[in-house]
């Protein structure tokens, strides 16, 4: 199917964080908070680091894993949580269940409930996402090759990461758009699938996508 009529509207987004009122002093309370936290909180603790102030954790790339290590000194749990890749889950609820599973497993293994010091309490936070129009419209996939390097990081987040939660197909917006153009762009879609959205920064994702698009459209790997 060639659906060249459908242009690609480039959007941007911003996140704003809110307190949920839920907190955990120990692993049992964490388990309880985890089961009660709104979906937007689970989302925030896995993805919020991309657009919110924080120092890149070299080892633990979600807030739950980082707290297990820094707050509870539970290295085993931190490792088990840090390896979770949210893109592999159908939805936020399944991701939540998997985190709960690993927390419960650790609780079963431990003779005592691990506690955090009073100044290392975990605070469940949630985010609201604000979606904006950049006014930029692309009419052909080749235009993405030139546009990608200039794309705002919020746009990369919205189209490449947030899309997986937002759309029925659970795929990024670039791939969804390219699929509309038929077989011609299937190899490009295959290449895009190799970009890891979770273990990279937004800048790295943007660079990698740019490289793939330029290579496909013959612009060279700059």
């Amino acid at each position: 199917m060639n659906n060249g009529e459908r242009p690609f509207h480039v959007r941007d987004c911003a996140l704003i964080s809110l307190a949920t009122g839920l907190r955990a002093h120990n692993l049992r309370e964490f388990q309880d908070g985890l089961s009660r936290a709104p979906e937007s909180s689970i989302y925030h603790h896995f993805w919020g680091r991309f657009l919110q102030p924080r120092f890149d954790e070299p080892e633990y790339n979600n807030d739950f894993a980082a707290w297990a290590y820094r707050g509870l000194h539970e290295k085993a749990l931190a490792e088990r949580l840090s390896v979770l890749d949210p893109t592999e889950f159908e939805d936020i609820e399944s991701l939540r269940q998997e985190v709960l599973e690993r927390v419960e497993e650790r609780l079963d293994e431990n003779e005592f409930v691990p506690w955090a010091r009073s100044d290392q309490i975990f605070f469940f936070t949630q985010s609201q996402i604000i979606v904006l129009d950049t006014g930029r419209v692309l009419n052909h996939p080749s235009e993405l090759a030139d546009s990608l390097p200039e794309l705002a990081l919020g746009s990369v987040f919205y189209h490449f990461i947030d899309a997986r939660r937002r759309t029925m197909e659970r795929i990024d917006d670039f791939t969804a758009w390219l699929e509309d153009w038929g077989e011609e762009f299937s190899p490009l879609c295959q290449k895009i699938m190799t970009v890891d959205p979770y273990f990279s920064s937004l800048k790295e994702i943007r660079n990698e996508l740019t490289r793939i698009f330029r290579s496909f459209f013959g612009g060279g790997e700059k």
Partner: protein
Amino acid sequence: MNQILQQYGKVTGHEVISHLEQLAESLKGLKVVHVNSTRVGGGVAEILHKLVPLMNSLGLDAEWRVIEGNPDFFNCTKGFHNALQGFRTIIPESLLRVYEQVNEENSEELRPLLQEADIVFVHDPQPAALIKWMENRKGKWVWRCHIDCSRPYRPVWKYLRNYVKEYDASIFSLAQFAQPMPHPQYLIAPSIDPVSEKNIELPPHEVEAVYEQFGLKPDLPLILQVSRFDRFKDPIGVIEAYRLAKKVIPLQLVLAGGTAADDPEGEAVLEEVERASAGDPDIHILLLPPDAHRTINALQRAADIVLQKSIKEGFGLTVTEAMWKGKPVIGGDTGGIRLQVIDHYTGFRVRTPEGAALRIRYLLHHRERLEEMGHLARHLVKENFLLTRHLMEYLALMISLVKGFKDRIDVSK
């Protein structure tokens, strides 16, 4: 793009400015008023000096008003400040009445403006009670708390909460500062202004000039703490740390600060600091006027290491300023310092003067680590703690207030 936005674009990149313009698009013409209690001194006033013109440059109709108070009022609100930071502070009923009376008097003058505004940001406890006399307010009211109130002294918080709960939303700097409230609590970290006198790049001769100006020795390592003379900033602990480190490494200490118009305790603390430092020619206590921004900038650039050994800290903008200048910071393990000083990466977090002394010695012995940490510190601030990010979150919050509280707000349609 107008001049003020261009100026910021040069530091942050134009992508950031374009993002702000998109966010502001749906807010154009919105009447926004900020209210606080001092126009000079302290981080809040510094932020508002720039945040308000920036909002205007993006098409909002923003203004900043300051409430008037008397000495009893500021004694009372200093008590609030201490109590919110967890110190048992008994505030006499008579002072609470003064607090209410001052707020009521200010509400008379501000009412026409505030009742008609679309969004009102009330900063800190001083003007928090204004809302009581604004029955016919039209817009959304937001209480912005800049204080570490993670463990407030309950009787005082209970009193203030009665006012705060009437607001439509509140903003805290960190999740741990948020208190249970019947409205949404947004989390926004503060920021520094990269183009202000306090943070712009300075020519080397201007940095070097501080040595002569304050009688400092160019050949001695310089450690610095910039902050109000306030017990929560632990200036006495800094002197102790300096003395411990000096046993091994020759060095000099500068304690630079001033007092804010709304801080009646400043002079008493300054006297304690002067007594503690008596007899040591390498301790320099500089009482600087509130507008000595360029001098502070030069001192921060001249320093080898910057300390912020606070016992309690809302956010610690002096930490951000030092990091922006590529300095590693040895900071108290508290409040917003934790968000900025990433232990062993952008500096060290310490709990005691002994800990601070150890880290001073370590950094002065390992100059390559000092440089590396300073570089990471500047990068962290550039990505996260500049005024443009702060403004972005204020704009996002205003969209959220105007469009209603939901997980996803799409203003692109």
